[in-house]
């Protein structure tokens, strides 16, 4: 009897926390269909008018495209810079390895605001003023940290004899990379790319300081919120929620497949 009560307590407190995590998200989705412009309880009538407003809002659509451009470009460049480095960090020992690993992690461990103001202060010395270019460089820098930490885990799990076998069979380094290492890293790369895209699309603290006149999506939403609550934000938030959910489903699926294959 007492055990049963304890179980009920554990069960209900766990689900209460789960509710706390999800209720706000469901409220946004629900209220995106609200016909009125005040988010009050209960909803009197439903409509799709905020979604229609969304597709007519040129500034918001422009911001979505800016964010997509930055996200894809920064993810691609971070992968090009980060993947060879992760490979080398895993395989070789070299002078200053420990310090390099610490520096790589800095944009993740240190607060975004400090990284943001540091870049804001120093980029002008390179002739880079606040603009989407500055934002792009900022994003590449912190995504390098994400790429390397994510890929290092997988490189460490990989059998080192696999690569050696390729060389013994006469493969050149480049073909060993493309034919042996890359296929083995496929799921890790997909997961990393998705994580990078999502993180870049959501990034605010660094972007906040480097953005010029043209906004990215989260900064545009921030602006809309500052101007007052508009249910249009509910509609765009619903889209963001759906895309995040799709990204994590793909990411866990590929991870699971890889685990069962191993």
């Amino acid at each position, binding site marked *: 009897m007492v055990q049963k009560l304890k179980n009920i307590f554990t069960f209900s407190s766990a689900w209460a926390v789960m509710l706390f995590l999800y209720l706000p998200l469901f409220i946004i989705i629900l209220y995106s269909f609200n016909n009125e412009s005040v988010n009050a309880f209960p909803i009197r009538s439903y409509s799709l008018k905020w979604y229609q407003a969304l597709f007519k809002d040129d500034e918001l659509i422009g911001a979505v495209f800016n964010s997509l451009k930055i996200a894809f470009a920064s993810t691609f460049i971070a992968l090009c810079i980060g993947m060879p480095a992760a490979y080398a960090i895993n395989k070789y020992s070299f002078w200053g390895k420990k310090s390099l690993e610490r520096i790589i992690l800095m944009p993740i461990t240190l607060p*975004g605001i400090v990284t943001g103001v540091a870049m804001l202060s120093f980029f002008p010395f390179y002739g880079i003023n606040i603009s989407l270019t500055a934002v792009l460089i900022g994003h590449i820098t912190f995504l390098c940290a994400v790429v390397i930490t994510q890929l290092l885990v997988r490189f460490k799990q990989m059998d080192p004899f696999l690569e050696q076998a390729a060389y013994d069979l006469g493969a050149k380094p480049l073909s060993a990379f493309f034919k042996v290492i890359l296929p083995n890293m496929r799921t890790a790369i997909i997961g990393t790319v998705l994580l990078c895209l999502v993180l870049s699309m959501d990034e605010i*603290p660094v972007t906040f300081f480097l953005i010029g006149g043209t906004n990215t999506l989260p900064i545009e939403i921030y602006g809309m919120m500052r101007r007052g609550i508009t249910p249009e934000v509910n509609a765009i938030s619903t889209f963001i929620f759906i895309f995040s959910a799709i990204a*994590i489903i793909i990411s866990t699926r590929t991870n699971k497949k890889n685990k069962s294959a191993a």
Partner: protein
Amino acid sequence: MKKNRSKYLLLAPLAIWLLLFLLLPYCFVLVQSFLKSDDFGNVVYDVNVDSYTKIFTNSLYYSTIFYTFLYALLVAAICILISLPLAYYIAFKVRRNKLLLYSMIVLPFWVSYIVRAYAWKIILGENGILNSLLMKTGITDHPVEQFLYSTFSTIVCLVYILTPFVAIPIYTAMEQIPKSLVEASKDLGAGSFTTFRRIIFPLALPGIISGGTFALVLTMGDFLAPLLLGGPNTLFISNIVQNLFGTSNDKPLGSAVGIVILLLILAVLEISSHYEKKYSSFKINS
């Protein structure tokens, strides 16, 4: 020789990138914190420690740093408190669908910060959902203004945003505890609470510490939650940095405050990694 060259070739792009766009900017902030700004907000190359003197003598700065640290501790404590039952439930009580439930903790972490902050704005707002619900049910007859634009709403929002960061490491730590250990404790006559207190909690401590550290450090660096949900009196230390680089335009002072936050965070990270290691040594190698 050839091998040596290729490894530096692989590392060079990253090293150059980090030097140019990360290390030099950080170093410049350090340098800038010892300079001063003229009446027009231009940085003047005149080395001094005025900014640091200001931070430690003007109560606006040192008390805000102190209060931000207290709020961060509070946020971390609440996050740990609510993550414990959730992590415990998934690690020990759920048999099927474990992965699904785990993904459910991870999902909010992937949803945009701004969207999650916005949710609380529409829930807690003066004409928001909570107030209209309370009025409809007759609990109050006028909107409760204190919900939004206060330190309370800022803390609620931060707890909401940071809980996944805390729950994930706690769950990971609990998942690694051998189930046989928990059963042995129960076989020896310990109740669930004693088992939790004596077995599960100490073994999950490294996860609890690392999760709590995430919440603490991220709150100390956060300027958006106070900006979006806080009131006129809600001022976190990062808001001061943001103002000094924006409207107040005193970059040297802003840099100095940034450096102080940075040192504080590094100290927190150092202390917590010390304790994390200390308690990991209790781990049973079976």
